[in-house]
């Protein structure tokens, strides 16, 4: 039974890493949003499994937040933003898909090499979870670096954040996990509202406001 528990936990965490890779090569915004919803569902299952295995009812709350907020509300909101702001439907990936995927594989290998020896003494659940979580965090960072469009950067950030929640849920009996996931959701909500209100399309270079069309002062 113990073995099965571990296997299922690994399967779910591993599928999160796979979905992270799907995010990495997706170059259409609508597809990106759908896959992010899938990412959030995988996170929900993973956290719910941890809640069941660890007999930690509070983790169900975290799983619920992931399902309602990240797998439902955020994708719907993002789809509306893409529609209303009429953002180009395809987004370029800086550096091309091939090299990015290779870099992604390298990052996953790196996180296994770093985390597995470091966590040798920790319990096996936390161990595998942590290695996968670090891989998801690094893949999220990679996605933020290789995208210029604000919406896809946000999705990169949210996938990174899913990795964090996975790590926190995997740590046995860690207190404040629910509080932390709420705090992170607030952060994400702010970002999404920010894009919507201020119509931010591209990363740092073009913030497009309705009423203001001033020439920038100092060259940067």
């Amino acid at each position, binding site marked *: 039974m113990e073995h099965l528990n571990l296997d299922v936990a690994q399967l779910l965490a591993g599928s999160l890493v796979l979905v992270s890779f799907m995010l990495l090569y997706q170059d259409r915004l609508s597809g990106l949003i759908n896959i992010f919803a899938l990412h959030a569902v995988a996170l929900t299952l993973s956290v719910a499994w941890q809640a069941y295995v660890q007999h930690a009812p509070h983790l169900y709350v975290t799983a619920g937040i992931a399902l309602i907020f990240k797998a439902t509300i955020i994708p719907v909101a993002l789809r509306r933003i893409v529609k209303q702001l009429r953002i180009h439907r395809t987004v370029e990936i800086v550096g091309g898909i091939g090299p990015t995927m290779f870099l992604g594989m390298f990052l996953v290998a790196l996180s296994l090499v770093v985390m597995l020896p470091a966590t040798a003494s920790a319990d096996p659940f936390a161990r595998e979870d942590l290695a996968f979580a670090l891989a998801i965090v690094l893949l999220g960072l990679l996605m933020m670096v290789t995208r210029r469009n604000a919406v896809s950067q946000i999705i990169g950030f949210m996938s990174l954040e899913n990795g964090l929640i996975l790590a926190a849920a995997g740590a046995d009996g860690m207190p404040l996990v629910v509080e*932390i996931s709420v705090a992170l959701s607030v952060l994400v909500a702010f970002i999404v509202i920010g894009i919507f209100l201020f119509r931010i399309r591209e990363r*740092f270079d073009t913030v497009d406001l309705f009423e203001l069309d001033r020439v920038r002062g100092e060259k940067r």
Partner: protein
Amino acid sequence: MNSEMLMVSNALVAIPAVAAAALVVQTDYRRAAQINLAASGVTFLFALALLFKGHEDGSFLFVDDLNIVFVVLSTLVGFTTSIFSASYIQHEIDTGRLSLGNLRFYHATYQVLLCAMNLALLASNIGLMWVSLEVATLTTVLMVGVYRTRESLEAAWKYFILGSVGIALALFGTILVYIAAEPVLGEGYDSMVWSTLMAHAPDFSARLLNVAFVFLMLGYGTKVGLAPMHAWLPDAHAEGPTPISAVLSGLLLNVALYAVLRFKMLLTANAAAVTPGPMMIALGLASVIFAAFMLYKRDDIKRLFAYSSIEHMGIIAFAFGVGGPVANFAGLLHMTMHSLTKSAIFFSVGHIAQVKGTQKISEIRGLTQSHPALGWGLVISVMAICGMPPLGVFMSEFLVVSSTFARQPWLAVPLVFGLLVAFGALLLRLIGLAFGEPTKSVGEVQASTVPLVVHLAIVLLAGLYLPAYLVTWFQNVARLLG
């Protein structure tokens, strides 16, 4: 439980929180500025009370020798900045740069920020500390964007993205620390509390702590503004309201540094873990030298001093990285002096930008003639930040350099080089700003020079004479830091 209710540290978190709630509903901005000032003042008085009461240990908040220093410093700067803010916003209202609604929002977030920073400093566990630093980041993002101009929104967005990534990495480090502690301290709350963590640090898995520190250093280091994670800092300082620039430089960078220092202590307590010093030294030196060269090309007065903040945070991180009683003492002193001096600079710069109607250095000349109080205030505070004797920054920089010479002489060479380059750049800009034929002014301000004078007076006094009480206290903390 009763004694816990009476803790002074509760008041330090509760007063700003209550004030923030009151300010949300306060529609008269003059009254709001008064409430803001009064609440910050009372919070500062309570922080002073901590000096007499000493240690406190509650279930969520705690006070020890280390965080008292930070709390007193940050409530003092929070208080003086609220005085400056009152005269600053009056002008912004008169010129229509801020609407009344924005102002209400501004005052409430100011108190939320003070609350979050006090909570981060006083939090007795690593999870609460992380949450409050996240709240502090969010509120400053909102305040940087308060002008709703293209530039300020862009700065806020950049700060937001980089700050969030930093905060996320710090969370990963925090989780790793918990996992390192959990086999020793058992599941649950105990494995996150500073006091138990410190007591059992030698038993934790060293490899896990090493990995954790890398994430914590990069994550919280982003908030400290260390190169190469500094990119948000100049924009956030330049485009937000000037009181926020003062609070960012004077307080928030320190609070993030406090988090780094706490984790550094944890690693130092574990003999098998890597020494965190070299990493801090490397990031610190990189920041000093990078910022020193960047100072030369600035044409925005607030951006100029933002780069100077990166430089000084680099010096402080460097000093704590070198470690040992003298260098830690120097780091603490330099942090205090930098907070006071840099916020003083922003107090004068804020009014200068208002009277001149521009932040461009090339368009501002002859300040000592046209506005003697502001001009000379700027001259003295920039001289102070450059490290001219007899002001306090000179003494702390001298201590940093001399203690480095004593321990690792080769490291002192690049540090002194960076200091000299920065010195030249700031002096060059200062001469242009302060002397020569005055440029025309666009308006007058009712500048309140009290906060400026208070800060400079403390910096001057500290340079001339440090009270023995303060010295022994800082020495204690320096020993604590290892």
